[in-house]
């Protein structure tokens, strides 16, 4: 009697315990946060300056009249940060795997699902914190926020989900190869091509035809468009739901693969 309830309880409390551990680790190695924030901040401060005159082109060709390049690019930079930090997620799993920490967890009665869930929650938390820092900085630099605080909360939601979906890729690679270097390399290789071939930094309309085609297949584009609508236009629910739908689809695939590999490691 009550076994299901007991399992649910342990899932909840064990997830909490492991989440707290991971967050403590994150806070105590601030250098990691600094490194992953470094790139987006450079983009925000320098890249947008480099392209500041681009605003004219944005107005005439891209359909964003009266929008500064900073305001335009903020959405792209937030998501760039989202997926580049999510792509590192697998390294912490590899760490626990190679240090023996995972085995130390597995000889306790800890709820198995909590190990994965704790990890994912931490990733989501990290992405949201980093996004908050980036958005705050963008705001100070004068970027536009059409939907105010409620919009920012929706942005956090999108970015957190987006981060989770991409974490799945990183976790899958991590669990499969058990090599932190591979996970890092993957992040390095994927980041820029995916970023450039999306609407993150340049409106799709201004791209060469072939790139437009790729960009329209790139899930980042949809997430960026939703966030951009929130910063520049307002609550455009069609774009928001479209983004969440596509992210959900990716999450389903990557989480499925992660779960499958994780169960193999755990059993």
């Amino acid at each position: 009697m009550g076994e299901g309830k007991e399992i649910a309880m342990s899932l909840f409390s064990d997830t909490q315990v492991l989440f707290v551990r991971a967050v403590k680790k994150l806070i105590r190695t601030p250098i990691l946060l600094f490194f992953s924030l470094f790139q987006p901040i450079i983009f925000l401060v320098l890249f947008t300056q480099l392209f500041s005159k681009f605003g004219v082109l944005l107005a005439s060709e891209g359909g964003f009249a009266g929008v500064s390049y900073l305001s335009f690019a903020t959405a792209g930079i937030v998501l760039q940060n989202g997926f580049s930090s999510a792509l590192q997620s697998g390294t912490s799993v590899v760490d626990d795997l190679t240090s023996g920490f995972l085995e130390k967890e597995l000889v306790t009665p800890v709820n198995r699902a909590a190990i994965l869930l704790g990890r994912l929650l931490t990733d989501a938390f990290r992405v949201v914190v980093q996004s908050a820092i980036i958005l705050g900085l963008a705001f100070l630099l004068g970027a536009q926020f059409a939907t105010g605080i409620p919009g920012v909360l929706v942005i956090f939601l999108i970015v957190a989900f987006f981060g989770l979906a991409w974490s799945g890729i990183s976790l899958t690679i991590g669990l499969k190869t058990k090599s932190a270097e591979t996970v890092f390399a993957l992040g390095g290789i994927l980041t820029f091509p995916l970023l450039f071939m999306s609407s993150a930094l340049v409106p799709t309309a201004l791209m060469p035809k072939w790139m437009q085609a790729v960009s329209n297949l790139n899930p980042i584009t949809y997430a960026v468009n939703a966030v951009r609508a929130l910063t520049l236009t307002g609550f455009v629910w069609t774009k928001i739901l479209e983004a969440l739908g596509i992210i959900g689809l990716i999450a389903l695939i990557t989480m499925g693969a992660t779960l499958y590999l994780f169960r193999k490691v755990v059993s």
Partner: protein
Amino acid sequence: MSDVLSVQDLVVVYSDGTKAVNGIDFAVNEGEVFGFLGPNGAGKSTTIKVLTTLLRRTSGKVSVLGMDLDKNQKEIRTQIGVEAQETVVDGDLTGRENMILQGNLHQMKGKELDDRVDELLRLVELSDVANKRAAFYSGGMKKRLDLASSLVHRPKLLFLDEPTTGLDPQSRATIWKHLSKLNKEEGISIFLTTQYLEEADKLCGRLSIIDHGQIVTSGTPSELKADIGADAIALSVEGFEGANGKSEKAKQVLEGIPGIANIMSSDDGLTVYAKNASTLVPEIVRAFDASGLKLSSISLSRPSLDDVFMKHTGHRIRAEELVKPPSRMMGRWGRGRR
């Protein structure tokens, strides 16, 4: 039902075909310290991983604390403590946080947990550094923290995979002290593996010698030593390198001496076993002088577990890269090794 551990015909074959454990049987009684003594690759860690629910066995019957390994995994995990071969502490957390985390994973919390953690930190003498990050601990401190964190939930049975390997002699002695105390005062049964003869000798009530996935002999340390029934004389001969002409000749010289029965050769020399060994030493020296072979050292000792190991496996246990016991080579006339 006094067996805390019972293993029958355990076989473990890894997916690449390596037969790491090849049909072993043993049982550990409640309150006992039982050891597996064996060299690198003998199958010690593999056995521990199976017994602690981490690795699936290929075949065999295992019960842990009277419970079936397949049916009661979760219950077993709540009652065993495990310290893996590689020290595992989270360097980003403090010593205390490491232990609290371990308690949390065992569903402990609040004052009960805090008190238990304090008690254990005192036991392993880490109270002073409890709030320091574990990354800054020395190797011996990490090992002690790892040991303490495997005890938070008051396990009935403790599994220790080479608990002192790589430590300096002093840290090793400290760990031995803690383990004896835990066994005597908390009544915890302990299953440990080791490559150190001295460790097996000092800590274990009974032990099995394991080599190539098989148990070659079992018993109390004194039974095993008595079983040899003779003292050991270790010789090294100048120019002796394994099985070359010199070693053959040296063997012949020894065989010519009455009273010498058992001659074993290893990389660093020859060992012979004899009942009244001390009276034989002068004879051996004379015989070698007459043969033209030059003895570079000779030493006499009561049989040690090393000799037991040698007798049953035909080779000496080697714990390379570890701090070695004093070498037996350096002409230590008539001085016994322990």
